């Protein structure tokens, strides 16, 4: 699965890597989790046909079929990726979240709105 993301995400990942290099323990756990999620996404042979613990549809997103990629519970970190699949071979990452405290229905409500708007933007750029 090829992965597309907004240009700003590369810089944010680089910042996270710098935090890890600086000895930030929480950043290290976040980056390890992000790496695991991206690996799962990269290894997907095609758009998921059904939900799993790792890949679930964002039920608040009705206009676009958004999926969230998650890892099992960790007391310190909760990394999530919101993704959309334009084809079986491509994943468009719309949002990341590292903020454990803010994850919940309210976060997913906003993620659905922002994620759908970002998918619209991707479609405008890929007519």
């Amino acid at each position, binding site marked *: 699965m090829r992965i597309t993301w907004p240009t700003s995400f590369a810089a944010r990942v680089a910042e996270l890597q710098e935090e890890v290099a600086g000895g930030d323990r929480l950043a*290290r756990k*976040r980056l390890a989790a992000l790496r695991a999620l991206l690996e799962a996404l990269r290894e997907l042979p095609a758009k998921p046909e059904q*939900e799993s613990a*790792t890949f679930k549809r964002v039920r608040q997103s009705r206009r676009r079929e958004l999926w969230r990629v998650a*890892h*099992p519970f*960790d007391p310190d970190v909760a990394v999530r990726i919101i993704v959309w699949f334009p084809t079986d071979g491509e994943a468009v990452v719309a949002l*990341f979240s590292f903020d454990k405290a803010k994850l919940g229905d309210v976060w997913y409500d906003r993620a659905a709105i922002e994620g759908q708007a970002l998918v619209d*933007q991707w479609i405008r750029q890929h007519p």
Partner: protein
Amino acid sequence: MTSSGNDSSMNPGRLEETTFVDATNAVDELLAEQELAPESQAIRERMREADRVHAMTLAMVRHAAGLTQVELAKSLNVSQAAVARSEARGDMLLSTLQAYLEAAGARAVLLVELADGTVARISLAEASAA
């Protein structure tokens, strides 16, 4: 979801300025770095285990019992459509889950892994009655 300070959410900023790039190579470079590989692989293994557990759906429990939706519905005194809805639902009351599993001949228990790694066994009947 704006990224600022310690708020570690990442959105791409102003929507109208957002452009997308193929990040496949960047992701592959991240995956090729070995420093975080052991921690990341441990998380991947937990993800795979969670997926294996998730894969045992209610419908699979029913199939294992050799029952059709109609037969299970009869045991539950509900319609076949109600059983179908339960199987398609992402979440449900514990009491509904308990009734479904018991109708399928399964012992309804919850296995809960505590923070210290020990596993607790909880009767679903007791949990749903609480």
